């Protein structure tokens, strides 16, 4: 009786996602960033570390779209090369945190004996501020791109693990899982087939938000000079290096700041869109 004349309620998640113009735009923006990162060498005639002392601190022009920095390097070129690193960090962290989180979450949700220990561990990890935990881990591991990704992945693991734990608790109680157990299906198979299928949506949504948060954290850590070798351009490194010239050559920090912001906004909007599209509860309640 409560049916409505809505097309949205009958469409698949992808349709719902793309029906939202803001989300579509965000995905397009992310696509542009990804293409720029992948094809960086073909998009610019300059080298990211090509010094040119005669062309120091030039404002944006038709030759140097985003100007040049204190060493005469083309900022636009550095932006797209930096995007490679920043996006790689975001993607790597999101993927790795998902793996860690799924393992911990399923163990906690499915094996009640492990649950208290894992839950407490997650609580304890949440008690550390992101940046602080990351720098402590980096202090322990030593700074490198890979260690940065691992450290941030550890920092964001509880976010995934909690979602997965909650979903597996629910799935565990579902009758079909009990039925499968009664039929003698082995526990790992049950886990894989039933649980995994039910938790992919919340994981994808969380992973998108982690992608965004990791990019911001990376920028912050690079700004602090912790983690990434400053000779490797990331957006955070560029801002950090450009801050001395803020009064004379504002474009040095303007463009990398905008790049981070736009990318993070696009990721968050996509995450919101995914959540609405993948969460059947929200769709049902209109």
């Amino acid at each position, binding site marked *: 009786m409560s049916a409505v004349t809505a097309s949205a309620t009958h469409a698949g998640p992808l349709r719902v996602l793309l029906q939202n113009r803001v989300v579509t735009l965000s995905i397009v923006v992310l696509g542009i960033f990804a293409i720029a990162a992948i094809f960086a060498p073909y998009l610019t005639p300059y080298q990211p570390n090509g010094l040119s002392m005669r062309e120091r601190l030039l404002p944006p022009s038709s030759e140097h779209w985003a100007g040049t920095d204190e060493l005469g390097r083309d900022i636009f070129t550095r932006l797209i090369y930096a995007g490679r690193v920043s996006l790689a960090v975001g993607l790597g962290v999101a993927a790795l945190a998902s793996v860690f989180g799924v393992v911990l979450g399923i163990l906690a949700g499915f094996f009640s004996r492990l649950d208290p220990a894992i839950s*407490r561990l997650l609580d304890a990890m949440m008690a550390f*501020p992101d940046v602080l935990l990351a720098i*402590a881990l980096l*202090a322990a591991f030593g700074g490198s791109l890979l260690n940065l990704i691992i450290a941030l992945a550890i920092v964001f693991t509880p976010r995934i693990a909690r979602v997965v734990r909650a979903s597996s608790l629910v799935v565990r109680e579902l009758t079909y899982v009990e039925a499968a157990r009664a039929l003698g299906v082995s526990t790992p198979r049950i886990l894989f087939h039933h649980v995994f299928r039910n938790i992919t949506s919340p994981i994808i949504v969380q992973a998108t938000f982690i992608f965004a948060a990791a990019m911001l954290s990376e920028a912050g850590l690079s700004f602090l*000079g912790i983690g990434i070798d400053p000779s490797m351009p990331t957006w*955070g490194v560029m801002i950090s290096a450009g801050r001395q010239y*803020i009064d004379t050559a*504002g474009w040095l920090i303007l463009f990398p700041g905008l790049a981070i912001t736009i990318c993070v906004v696009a990721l968050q909007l996509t995450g919101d869109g995914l959540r609405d599209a993948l969460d059947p509860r929200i769709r049902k309640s209109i």
Partner: protein
Amino acid sequence: MVSYLRTRLLGMVLTVLIVLVFVFFIARLAPGDPAELLLGPDASAADAEALRERMGLNLPVPVQFLSFLGQLLRGDLGTSIFYRQPVLEVMAARAEPTILLTLMSLAIAVTIALPIGIYGAYRRGGAFDQGAVAVAMLAAALPNFWVGLLLQKYLGTDLGWFPVSGYGNPDASIWERVQHLVLPSIALGFAQSAIILRFSRASMLDVLGDDYIRTARSKGISERRVVLRHALRNALIPIVTVIGLSFALLISGAVITERVFNLPGVGSLIVGAVLRRDYPLIQAALIVVAALYILVNFLIDMIYLAIDPRVKY
């Protein structure tokens, strides 16, 4: 009530223990030998060995952990390698700017974000609401050191309204010190306000759809009263939780903000400690911050007791 407190405290103690194990092993993972770090590069191998013996570094790891716990219980969190002083003293000397900075930014964030979020929810979908949601999204996406740098340039250097950086002379008055904290607090508060705005809006939306709001309206009381007396008080309950949880975020932000504005706070201290590999200091800072977080969230549970009659522990 008593039994609730007992389980709650027990849980806290457990979490703190796990924090300690975690911190202990992070420090053990670190490359380099603490004894050598402590003595500096010029020390002889014999001296290093003697110090290692004295620090108990040659004992089995579980024994080391127990003695680490024992020291903690005596209030000894170790000695800073760089400052050559007990870490707690080093941190205490730097605590003021950090405490003031976090409190001021929280105050700024709450005063701005709470009313906007609540009014936005009340006028859901309207121009004001959509604008507020967009700004919150942006505030959450702006790197806060970048915002800090822009504030420094425009409000500090160009307009000259506030000190650009530092914490004043050593003998600066409290008023001067607070002035130095204005720009950092705005930068940090802005980032913080994003979460508070989103949550207060969501919480208010939730409450406005509740049955008792309809009942209140059916009584013929004014809209103002419906919103302020009936909806707001209920909406505040989850908002308080989020403010507690956002404490961790506030500290993260403070670490970066202090670097941007050259504030001599605990955040700068920690970054310096990492760059100098001052492990005892890093370790102590982690413990103190995590303990504070756990404490803040415990206090928030206690606040519930005061504001929600349903909560009877």
